């Protein structure tokens, strides 16, 4: 398997009023194509910052981030937009569905800007919501909304799925279901999965786990035998 990301010495300093906060200290990280990687850490550990840098939502203050041969640090705002559009699927903690579009439309919308999209209806079917395709977000439960969000992220056939605490706002049972869908996407479609969470139990489903604290990576460990989502508990 080739390398999808190569991060070298990437750091991010935020200016909060008069103080500077180093949210991410200089960090190295490699992500392989097709792997399922969980970044584990408490709040303030820098995991979200790292995810934003990888997703092209934010830019590092120093260091480089290579996506395959593409240097993300050299892209302007428009270049980053195109990068997100072609390569990245996002899943957010609070789903961020467009409230004025139905479930199916939310998925279809994302496919409109992608070069080789998947069939929106099939994606809705894959996350088990074929019968709710015409519902608006306000008519769906949290777990259903998150599954629509995953369908939306996957429908554009991204190279990488970036998930920011995808189960953070869900109850246990619903959370497991969402994780199953994510793992299924990773296994069946071969989409690289990058998931950040503060929940250590979730790390068990990953091929590899990166633990972070205070803006730096503490350790990286390979899961020899990743567990199926239904087998984990928290």
């Amino acid at each position, binding site marked *: 398997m080739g390398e999808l990301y190569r991060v070298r010495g990437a750091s991010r300093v935020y200016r909060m009023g008069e103080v500077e906060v180093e949210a991410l200290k200089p960090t190295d990280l490699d992500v392989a194509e097709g792997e399922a990687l969980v970044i584990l850490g408490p709040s303030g550990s820098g995991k*979200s910052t790292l995810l*934003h840098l990888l*997703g092209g*939502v*934010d830019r590092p203050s120093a260091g480089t981030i290579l996506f395959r041969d593409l240097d993300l640090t050299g892209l302007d*705002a*428009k270049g980053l*937009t*195109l*990068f*997100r*559009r*072609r390569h*990245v699927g*996002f899943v*957010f903690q*609070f789903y*961020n569905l*467009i*409230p*004025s*579009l139905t479930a199916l*439309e939310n998925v*279809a*919308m*994302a496919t*409109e*800007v992608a070069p080789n999209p998947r069939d929106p209806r099939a994606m809705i079917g894959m996350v088990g919501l074929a019968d709710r395709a015409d519902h*608006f*977000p*306000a*008519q769906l439960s949290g777990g259903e909304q998150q599954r629509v969000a995953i369908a*939306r992220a996957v429908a554009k056939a991204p190279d990488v799925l970036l998930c*920011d605490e995808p189960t953070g706002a869900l109850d246990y049972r619903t959370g497991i279901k969402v994780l199953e869908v994510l793992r299924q996407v990773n296994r069946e479609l071969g989409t690289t999965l990058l998931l950040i969470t503060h929940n250590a139990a979730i790390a068990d489903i990953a091929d590899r786990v990166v633990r972070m604290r205070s803006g730096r990576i503490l350790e990286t460990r390979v899961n020899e035998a990743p567990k199926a989502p239904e087998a984990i508990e928290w």
Partner: protein
Amino acid sequence: MRTLDRKLLRNLGSMRGQLFAIVLIIACGIASFVTVLTAYRGLTSTRDAYYARYRMADLFATVKRAPRAALDDLARLPGVRRAEGRIVFDVTLDVPDLSRPASGRVVSVPDRRTAILNDLHLTRGRWFEGDGTGQVIVADRFAQVHGLEVGDTVSVLMNNKKEALRIVARALSPEFTYLIRGAGDVLPDPESFTVLWVSETFAEAVFDFDGACNDFVATLDPGASLEDVIAAFDRRLDRHGAIGAYGRRDQLSNRFLSDEIKGLQGSATMTPTIFLAVAAFTLHMLLARVVATQRTQIALFRAFGYTTGELVRHYLKLALGIGILGAAVGSGMGIWFGRQVAAIYGEFYSFPILDFPVDPVAIVGGTLAALVFASLGAIGALRAVVRLLPAEALQPEAPKAFGRTFLERWPLFARLPFPARMILRHIARSRVRAAITVGGVALSASILLLAFFSWGATEGLLDHQFRLSDRQDVRVAFHEERGRGALYELGRLPGVRVAEPELAVPVRLVHGNRSRRTGIAGLAPGSTLHALLDENLRHVQPPREGLLLSRKLAELLDVRPGDDVEVRVLNGRKPVLEVPVESVVDEQLGTAAYADLHRLSRWVGEEYALTGARLSVTDPRRLGEALKEIPSVAAVDFKGHTVASFRETLARSQRIFGTVLILFAGAITFGVVYNTARISLAERARELGTLSVLGFTDTEVRRVLEGESWLLAALALLPGLGLGALFSWLLTRVYDTELFRFPFVLRRDSILQTVALVLLFTLLANLLVRRRLRTLDMVDILKARE
């Protein structure tokens, strides 16, 4: 409440763009209110003071010639306070810088200065020396235009003699506040017309009027009946060739001034109400949003023990603060604009002093109106505050509930692109706000259309009257009735191609219990220089046996073609006849009636008579110089000059009023669209941020937000244009006066300009919102929860 007040100030600070827009709309409303009310009150009080101080007459009567002794008789009539006699003649002047004769009205005044009726206000120079022979006081405006100073001379053709008169003073008179020659003229033309005040002794000598006069003015006792005095005057003066006395109401200068004041009275309430209503709705929209976002804060304050009353007062203060700010800015604008309006009026009306001082009544009234409308705008938000349950409000706001709307039933809807669907559903969900936006933009469009219409209407009037109807180049009026020979004489003048006779006869037309004093114009069969047109601009057959009436006159008398009217001829042997009305013609100026020239001649006891002529000419300049030498000519009117002067006089005022209307309409469109877009942006920040994170380009994201503004603006255009057409039509009704009226013709240009400006203002508002959109922080949006 000090903490709440601090919060209030911070709230105001963070919404300053939107507040500015609302303040601007309120300010426009108050400015128009203060301006119009100031102008109305200022003009009324200036007129009243001027009339009182310079003893403007209540009654006017013209005769052929009466001995001065008749005056004693008139002065003793019951109800008459004071009566004066004078000599009045129309003359022509030769002014060196004019290649045509100017018209003058000689009015005699006492040799020595005394307090007379219609007294003069001398702006320069002094009263006559000695018996005033060879001396003249000229209208200030005329002297100004021609650069005439005290000591200069003007050459006046009086009673067949050319007299060089020395100017001893320049003056104003309440009788000529609106300095026009006669009915049919609409705008003052100080280049072509002046009053020439001469001493009685001089006038008697020049006009052979020893011990006689031909014009009477009088003031009445308070409470006296004008009708009774007019009747008494007419009885006493009948044998002196009276053509009927009339009251101040029908005096031409006063008529114009009073109509203007009446018009101001009408518009003092309408325009401001429109603006303030839009402001109230916009404020409602903004405050509803503020209360929605601050519901947690409100609940918190409630939980801490603040009473509902305190919180209501808090938000009311915000609304009233906006109202006061708008009133302050608007009053300032109104005071400034009032000065400009005074300057414009100063060009049309000659007053000794015309200044619109700061009017406390207008400002207090405006401020109260602003506060009332601001409070109305706050009612919705205040109700929400009162109804808020603290426990519920501490929960985050429920997610935006989108459900199926009526839109889904529309088969094409599913085929629309996503941004369009998002926009439509968003509009369908916030219908009140959408309606306010559409309403505001529509009103602004209607104001714009009205402004462009009124510009076009002037052109329409000019076109109809001076191109289609009046086909002559020059019109000449004689001092008195002349025979056929006068026409041949005119026809032989240099540069004259065609000369057609005109006979003007003063009459009173009576139909049922309605009656009107007017003139009948006699037209020769086959005349070509005066086209009579119906409302569809088709030619109307010239009169044969009966009369043609202008539409306005027919309305006033309530007659239709086929009806008979009673014609009371006011000069000559004064016959009274029953004459059928043959048809009605459409004219923009005056209330004329037409008859066949020969028939009309016989009514005044002549075989063939004319009092003037219409000329088609090849060389106006040479004709003009020649006319200066003809003693029988009382007045000359060069159409080209009249049209140019008309345009020039109106251009400045139209420019100012037009600019202001456009700015006002801009304030509304901008204010409403900006507020809607900002609220929409605030509500949808997360949605738009999500689109951006998902890889939608800035342009694509912008389209979703701005599409809403554009769609609403576009939706507003049609009703706006319709409303504007209605306002324009109402304007033609308001200005459908006996003096002039405007045709109701909406030009395509006006409509296109209106649409273009509405879209321009929408674009400006969007550009400002775009700046906000750029500062959206994607990272914040990913983390934030509604």
